[in-house]
Every structure is written in structure tokens, then in C-alpha cells.
């Protein structure tokens, strides 16, 4: 039995004669384990109850958009790794497609298939981390270890494909850094096969877990209307029951060829968002299986785009014409027409958009990044009010954001 707290006689009373407590202001973050990076929440508390929540952003601001104006399109690829650094491959692909749309360049089927495969792998790895971190947030440590073991297998595959585990920088405007290595797709296939039972096991630790459900069910409810009004995208939007998935609605990179379902939630609480992510991983495996089964041969870069994609290395080494072409491409950048383009891709965190204004040449005049995490965070002042401090932790984890792209 908790003992009843008795207010001292000197405590202030409000108009109706009840004792009034002072509001407390609490800074949660920027270095707080549950804020997943450098997010700071300026909370106003009435006891344990949150009465106001002001997110303070910008601690990780690097000025990526301005940096992009000072380098060629290809030089900016490594910077896209560092947006949503939990899914660098998906960022690479979104950026490359955005610039290619500017040049009205279509990729050959093999390149498109590779891009779909790496996007879905990135989605699985990002959701695995999101899930693991969410487990820790609500007190389920082992989940984190199991998801990281799986994630490590994916990282090994990324390493083999791109040469780096984390900062992949894999796409180029008009193609890729290199073709897939021998036998790589078979390894991805083998990963998928062993992954599904393990995923089921991991999810079974949470899905019907009473403690987990007590922490998430009916916590942080975002209504359908709010989700749309605040510009939420990705699993956070779908968790609220809006079936928007850019892979279905505006297919890119050949997504229309693959069969998959879009999981949506019913209530829009933390539990729904968790369920959606879990199901999305299974759908990603489905896409991976299909993409590998009909993995096309042929070119993996746009061969005719001589002013955009570099010539093959042995040609550069042996022929004067290609040597000069290489020099021009590196120093001037891939040649783009003047114009504007906006392209959004369905990233693990939501719709990652690039708006590019070009005045022609190899350097963007202006590049704007629509970061899904940034927009998803905008709902915090609304959704946190009226919840307990411990629920804020639960809500933050369920929104699964990355400050690297929110602050960019």
C-alpha cells in the first residue's frame, strides 16, 4: 500500500481549494539513452504527468544541404550515408534515383533489381535495430542481442557488396559503385531462409508479452487524421491505419514487379507501430526472395550515359578518349540538364525526399532533403502531452527516429 502524501499546510491551494503542485521543467536529452541520439525534450511536468513537450533539435546539424551545393553529384553520395545512418544503402538509392530523374535516366533491370535488394536489406537491418533499441527502452534486453546478431549477418553481406559495413556509399549517379560479387545473391537468399524463423522467435518474445503490452498498448495513440496532418510517413503513418506506401503508390526502381502486402495498424498506438515494423520485415523478405529468384543479367549501370557514368576502368587505363572522359566527369561532375526534380522513396523511417534545383552542369544549385524522422518528430508535442514520463520513453522508441537525418 503506498502511503498517502500529505501536503504541508503552507502549500498553495487553487481556486477550488485543492492543493496545487508546482510544475517542474525537465530536460530529457540531448544525451539520454532513450532519446536515441541527440534529441532534447524540454518537458513540463505536473508530478509524473507531462503537460508540455518541446522537442529541441539541431544538435547534430552539419549543413548537409549547403555542403551539397559545393560538390559534384557523385561526391555527395558519402554524405547521404550519414542521413539515416541505420539504412545508408536506402539513402544512397533514394539520392541516386532523384538525380537520375533529373536527367530522365532509366536504369537497366539488373541495376534496378540490385537497388531493390539493398533497399529491402537496409529496411530489415534498420527495423531490427529499431526493434532492439525499443526492447531496451521498455526493459527487454535480450531482444537487442538477438536482433543485433541478425543485423551483423546483414552487415557482413553489406561489407562484401560495398566494401564497408556502415558507410556504404554504394550508388553512383547512373549506376552503382560496382557489380554484385560472385555468389552474393545466393548468400542473401540463405540469409532470408534462416532469418524468418529467428524473426518469429524474436517477435514471440514481445508480441504476446504482458509486460511489453502494458507498456505499449493504448500508449501514444496517434489518430489517422493527426498522422496525416503532421506529415507522418513510414511505419508510423501505417501504424495509424493509413495504407500509404510509396513502393506501391509511386513505384520506383521496378517495385511494381514484386508482390508484397502493406501492414497497417488499427489504433495508432505504440503497439501498432511495433506490429507494423515486425510485419514489414517479413514482407521485405518476400520481396528479397522474388528479386533474387528473377535476378536479371545484363548491365548494372547506364551504358549510354557517357556524360554521367564513368567509363570502365580498363578502358580508362588503355584509351586516351576514356581517360579524358574520366577526367571531365570527375572534375566537372555528371552533367545534368537545368530544371527541378522532387523524388521521394519509401525508406525504413518513412518517405525520404530530395528536391534538387539544377542550373545545368555537375553541381546542384540547391538540394533540399525531406527527412522522414524530422517530420515524424513533429508529432511529439501533441502525442506526449497527458502521458507519464515513462510513457514518453515508450513513445520515442516506437517512433523510431534517427537524429542524423532529422538534423542533417
Amino acid at each position, binding site marked *: 500500500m503506498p502511503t498517502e502524501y500529505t501536503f504541508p499546510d503552507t502549500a498553495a491551494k487553487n481556486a477550488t481549494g485543492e492543493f496545487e503542485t508546482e510544475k517542474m521543467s525537465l530536460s530529457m536529452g540531448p544525451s539520454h539513452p532513450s532519446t536515441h541520439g541527440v534529441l532534447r525534450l524540454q518537458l513540463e511536468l505536473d508530478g509524473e504527468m507531462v503537460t508540455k513537450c518541446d522537442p529541441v533539435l539541431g544538435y547534430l546539424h552539419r549543413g548537409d544541404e549547403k555542403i551539397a551545393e559545393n560538390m559534384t553529384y557523385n561526391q555527395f553520395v558519402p554524405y547521404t550515408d550519414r542521413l539515416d545512418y541505420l539504412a545508408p544503402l536506402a539513402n544512397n538509392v533514394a539520392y541516386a534515383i532523384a538525380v537520375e530523374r533529373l536527367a530522365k535516366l532509366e536504369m537497366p533491370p539488373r541495376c534496378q533489381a540490385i537497388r531493390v535488394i539493398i533497399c529491402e536489406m537496409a529496411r530489415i537491418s534498420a527495423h531490427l535495430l529499431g526493434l532492439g533499441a525499443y526492447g531496451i527502452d521498455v526493459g527487454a534486453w535480450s531482444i537487442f542481442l538477438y536482433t543485433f546478431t541478425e543485423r551483423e549477418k546483414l552487415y557482413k553481406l553489406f561489407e562484401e557488396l560495398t566494401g564497408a559495413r556502415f558507410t556504404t556509399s554504394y550508388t553512383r549517379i547512373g549506376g552503382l559503385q560496382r557489380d554484385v560479387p560472385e555468389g552474393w545473391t545466393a548468400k542473401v537468399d540463405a540469409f532470408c531462409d534462416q532469418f524468418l524463423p529467428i524473426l518469429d522467435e524474436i517477435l514471440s518474445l514481445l508480441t504476446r508479452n504482458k509486460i511489453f503490452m502494458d507498456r505499449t498498448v493504448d500508449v501514444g495513440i496517434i489518430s489517422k487524421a493527426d498522422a496525416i496532418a503532421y506529415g507522418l510517413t513510414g511505419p508510423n503513418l501505417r501504424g495509424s491505419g493509413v495504407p500509404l506506401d510509396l513502393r506501391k503508390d509511386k513505384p520506383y526502381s521496378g517495385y511494381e514487379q514484386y508482390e508484397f502486402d502493406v501492414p497497417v495498424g488499427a489504433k495508432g498506438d505504440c503497439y501498432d507501430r511495433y506490429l507494423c515494423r515486425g510485419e514489414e520485415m517479413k514482407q521485405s523478405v518476400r520481396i528479397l526472395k522474388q528479386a533474387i529468384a528473377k535476378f536479371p543479367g545484363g548491365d548494372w549501370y547506364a551504358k549510354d550515359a557517357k556524360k554521367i557514368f564513368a567509363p570502365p576502368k580498363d578502358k580508362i*587505363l588503355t584509351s586516351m578518349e576514356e581517360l579524358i572522359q574520366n577526367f571531365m566527369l570527375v572534375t566537372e561532375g555528371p552533367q545534368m540538364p537545368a530544371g527541378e526534380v522532387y523524388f521521394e522513396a519509401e525508406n525504413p523511417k518513412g518517405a525520404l525526399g530530395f528536391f534538387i534545383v539544377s542550373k545545368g552542369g555537375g553541381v546542384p544549385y540547391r538540394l533540399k532533403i525531406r527527412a522522414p524522422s524530422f517530420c515524424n518528430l513533429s508529432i511529439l508535442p501533441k502525442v506526449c502531452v497527458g502521458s507519464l514520463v515513462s510513457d514518453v520513453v515508450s513513445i520515442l522508441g516506437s517512433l523510431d527516429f534517427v537524429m542524423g537525418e532529422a538534423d542533417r
Partner: protein
Amino acid sequence: MAVIPVSRKPLTLLERTYLPQIAGGLKTTLKHFFAPKDTMEYPEERPAIPAGYRGVPTLVFDPHGREKCVSCQLCEFVCPPKAIRITPGEIAADAPTAHVEKAPKEFEIDMLRCIYCGLCQEVCPEEAIWLQNVYTTSGYSRAELVNNKQKLYELGGTLPDTHFKWDKKKAAEEGGNAH
């Protein structure tokens, strides 16, 4: 379009006792307890590095011992964080590789700036700069972490060459059909 609502059924009475979860959790834990280890005793054990790995950038010699870099400075230009600094130099007129004309006098890569992106290797028209499989760098001062030319060649060593373009060029010149 196939949209599937996620299923969320209320907990059954049994599930509310938390007993099935405890049993399930213990089963998973026990399984992992007896499963082979997923971790590695680094640094005694080291992970296998796949081909094409992007480690520390290095400079290389060709199999005849000629330094391949001709200090064209393309890598210096492309490097996004501006980690490379090259001072071009001439090759002495009496050297056997005099026809290559240029080689770097000084070549520095600041490993505190380098982001291991591999663009330098990608653009190099001589295949002279390679990101190889060294992935750990450490030092006690900032100056120590700037790799100079000597260090870069020590790290790089000799790589096989398939083209020998400068040897071919020399042969062509001597044969009298230089362009």
C-alpha cells in the same frame, strides 16, 4: 493493393498470468545458451576481410617497382572531406622511368579526415591508390595520423598490374610510333 491489418487480439486468461511468456523466454534463452557463440575474441580473433574491402587508403608500386602515382591530383580533387594533399614533382631525366615524367614529391593523407569512401581509388587513372584491408589506425598525436608518402607506400606495397601502360608506351616510343 494488398493491405493487411496487423492482428491484435486481447490476451487470454492464461497469457495474462505471464506463465507462457516465462516458459517461452526461458526456452529461447536456453537455446542461445547452448548455441555456438556469436561473438569473437577481438583482437586475438579477427574477422575475415572480404575482397574489395575499403580500408586505409595506400599507394602502390607496380611489379617492376615503379611508383604508379603520376601526381595528376585527381584524387585530391575528388576527395569529399579534402583529406589528400599532393605536392607534384618531376622524375629525374636520367631515371629509367623518365618518360612517365611526373611523380608526387609529397603525398599526404590525413586519416583524421578520411572517411574511407573509396572515391580516390575509383577515379585514379593509374590504379595507384588502393583502399586495402587495414582498418585500424591509432596514434598519440594528430601529426602521427597524417600518412606521408613513405608510410603510404609501406602500407600499400606492390600490387599486380594487368596493363603496364607506361612500359607499353615506352616500347612504342622506342619503336618509333609514339603519338
